[in-house]
């Protein structure tokens, strides 16, 4: 994975698979250069054993292979920059994943195309789940909630061509405002 936003894409996919109705994603870049990524979902959650398996490359929920690298890859990446990854979950309630990257560390990958990641997630899941996105840095804060978009558009679906292009542009604008030129 060459970008932090690819890790994000992979991790949010887990929340989608967990049957979440709402996924809250926040990316906050602090003044010192720490980037905190939080993914909070109201999916089916995990018990303690599953949670431990999720952190290990030798645990996976899929049936096609015995390996599952998603979360371990992100954790290794975060740790390499001197950051961290924590995973908390309550069965039936949901899961919260927090990853911290030190963007000033030489081993920190670039943020990458956050707009593509977020647009892809929203457009590929036009009905459920909903996404609540929050980007923040010392330049400002940007928010987007797909529930509000759907309310405005109803009954036009989010993945209608014209809306898709608007959304992509909107997310690019949001990313540029918060993180443009720094990551």
């Amino acid at each position, binding site marked *: 994975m060459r970008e932090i936003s690819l890790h994000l894409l992979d991790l949010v996919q887990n929340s989608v698979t967990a049957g979440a109705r709402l996924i809250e994603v926040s990316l906050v870049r602090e003044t010192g250069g720490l980037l905190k990524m939080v993914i909070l979902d109201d999916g089916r959650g995990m018990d303690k054993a599953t949670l431990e398996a999720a952190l290990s490359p030798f645990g996976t929920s899929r049936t096609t292979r015995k390996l599952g690298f998603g979360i371990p890859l992100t954790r290794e990446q975060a740790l390499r920059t001197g950051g961290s990854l924590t995973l908390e979950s309550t069965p039936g309630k949901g899961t919260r994943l927090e990853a911290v990257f030190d963007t000033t560390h030489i081993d920190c990958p670039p943020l990458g195309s956050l707009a593509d990641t977020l647009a892809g997630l929203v457009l590929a899941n036009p009905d459920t789940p909903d996404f609540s996105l929050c980007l923040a840095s010392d330049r400002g804060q940007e928010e987007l909630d797909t529930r509000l978009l759907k309310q405005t558009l109803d009954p*036009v679906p989010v993945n209608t061509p014209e809306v898709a292009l608007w959304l992509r542009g909107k997310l690019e604008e949001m990313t540029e405002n918060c993180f443009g030129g720094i990551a």
Partner: protein
Amino acid sequence: MKSLSELEKIRQQTLERINLRREDRSDEVRIVVGMATCGIAAGARPVMMAFMTECALRKLSHVTVSQTGCIGMCRFEPMADVFIPGQEKVTYVNLDEDKARRIVTDHIVNGNPVTEYIITSQLGSAGKE
């Protein structure tokens, strides 16, 4: 600055077309991109965005692009399945953005599957581990 009022305008412009579509979805085409860890690491995101953008620019309202997980053929990623009603599923492998755009124009718009990107034509060559 992109605003919600722009979105409201888009809604008004597309409403009629959308209502017509809701009555008849028999021509619905689905593109499903493999987006598990293996797919993403191999470059599935630009491929998915190329599918989405190309369909959006061509205003193909009858095409939906969605994601699926790992189907166990990670060496062929990025992969995508194309479902067209009344036709057999076509599985494309080792994709990139240019190939994705070509699949939209040749296969989805013009009805000619891009044979050289289909899995069966690549088994035995690019797919060797």
